[in-house]
């Protein structure tokens, strides 16, 4: 189903100015940390609402991948990676990559049992991702990175391999329920499902039945319409604690737009373009570069949220925006 939207919905809103007819004392500092409440009753804390959804780990040397994963994790970004993306078979080393989002793809490509053990979030990734040629396929370098550990590996992959776009063990989306049950039994992580914006109306009811802890929606253009639509559905589920709504945007949002998205209901936003840019640059001091870029984004978002006089980013509401 095609979603019709205004070209720039985000531009139609601005972060509301403080009241001009009364004194309002501002908060000292707005906290950016968020938490995801699991259906099991536990909750997982995240230092920031930003995440790196699809790092191209296979395109950079593995040592650099590890340094980046560690640096971004240290700066509070939830980083998507499998053990085999980072070739991290050392438990202590793996711990330094947390918080970690582990993509559980339709065909389980690259997945190992250890991913159940150390992920903060398991992303049941039903959203197919195109390669640079438009295929739903895995890059040979990606396959070889994953296959580095195979005992029976006979030769390197030289061609891209088709990726599955639907789990082969499912008859229809109703099977999400038992899949989520399986993941819960094998892991203490939060179970998210990631989908495309075009599939919101089809997949969210299935996600509700499956009792997922969060939903990740990938949006190509303006995310506001999708956020509003998804948030309305999630709120209608009437759960004791709200299901997380993370959004992957096709372009990097400005700090003000990030605040608008949080106000409209998003609880996490991707920062893939910022992170990918850094990944392909050569910095002498990677950690410092990461800290600077992520710190600037966080400071700006904190500043806009602070101007709304909220103590936490999660306290932002649509009332904090005004329509122009």
């Amino acid at each position, binding site marked *: 189903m095609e979603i019709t939207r205004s070209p720039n919905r985000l531009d139609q809103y601005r972060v509301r100015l403080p009241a001009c007819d009364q004194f309002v004392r501002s908060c000292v500092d707005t906290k950016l940390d968020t938490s995801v409440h699991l259906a099991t009753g536990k909750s997982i804390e995240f230092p920031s609402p930003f995440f790196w959804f699809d790092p191209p780990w296979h395109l950079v040397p593995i040592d650099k991948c590890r340094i980046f994963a560690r640096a971004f994790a240290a700066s509070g970004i939830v980083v998507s990676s499998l053990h085999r993306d980072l070739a991290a078979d050392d438990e202590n080393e793996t711990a330094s990559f947390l918080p970690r989002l582990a993509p559980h793809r339709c065909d389980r490509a690259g997945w190992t049992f250890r991913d159940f053990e150390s992920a903060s979030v398991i992303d049941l990734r039903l959203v197919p991702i195109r390669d640079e040629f438009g295929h739903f396929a895995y890059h040979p370098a990606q396959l070889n990175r994953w296959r580095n550990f195979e005992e029976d590996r006979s030769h390197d992959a030289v061609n891209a*391999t088709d990726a599955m776009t639907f789990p*082969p063990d499912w008859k229809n989306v109703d099977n999400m329920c038992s899949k989520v049950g399986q993941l819960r039994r094998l892991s203490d992580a939060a179970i998210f499902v990631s989908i495309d914006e075009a599939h919101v109306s089809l997949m969210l009811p299935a996600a509700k039945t499956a009792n997922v802890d969060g939903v990740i929606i990938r949006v190509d253009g303006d995310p506001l319409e999708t956020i509003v639509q998804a948030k309305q559905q999630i709120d209608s589920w009437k759960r004791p604690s709200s299901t997380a709504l993370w959004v992957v945007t096709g372009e990097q949002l400005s700090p003000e737009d990030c605040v608008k998205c949080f106000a409209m209901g998003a609880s996490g936003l991707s920062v893939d373009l910022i992170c990918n840019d850094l990944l392909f640059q050569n910095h002498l001091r990677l950690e410092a570069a990461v800290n600077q870029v992520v710190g600037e984004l966080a400071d700006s978002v904190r500043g806009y949220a602070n101007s709304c006089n909220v103590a936490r980013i999660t306290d932002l509401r649509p009332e904090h925006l005004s329509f122009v």
Partner: protein
Amino acid sequence: MNSAANPVVHRLSLAQLSETELYERLAAIAAASESLPLSAGSIGPLVEIDDAVGQDAVLMGIMSSVRLHVKGPLGNYPFSYNVGADARIEGDVCNGVGEGLRGGSVRVRGNAGLGFGVAMRSGTLAVYGTAGDRVAAGMVGGEVFARGNVGADVGVGARGGMIVIGGDAGPRLGEPQGELIIFIRGKVQSLATGMCEAPLRKRDELRLGLLLINASIRGDAKDFRRIVPEVVLEQERARKHGEVDPSWR
């Protein structure tokens, strides 16, 4: 015969034990068995699992070397990501059986649903009835046996391993992008694009014969045909010396 080698048969109930308790008991049984003299403990202790009534996602992630005998049907995803267990199930199973299997074996004396052996990496999976669509999808290694018929898209996305089919196969059999080998005895509705039928080689006959014995499946290896990617067959034909004309002569 098994009870003579392992006189103690343990019994555990899926209805009475919590998941954690079940795994702890299995680990304790395996550990106790390892302390026994080699002759008694070498094939692993036998554990009978009662009260199987189609539960989803049970007996997963088992790393203990135990023999499991499950009496009754199981639901989706049983035996996922197991390493050391050898399991026998008297009943039907649903979807995703043996997902990501890393070793050991699973023998289903019944029928299996969709994605039997999806993404398995090693070990042996056998179903003595029929299996649904997409058997061994995304398989990396190991062996899958189906005595009866199988559904559509068997082996789709597989990058390695072996599938042996005793009955007929549905449409689009095989995966041309990997190194998957399929042996089939019955009819094939259609092959996946890029797959072809190839003559059974002597070494295949030998290997298949041993595998059939190992999976307790009766039949002569000569009754099977080999299905491989066209690329693989071309490479075989391009070799100057084949198996009946070795270069060292």
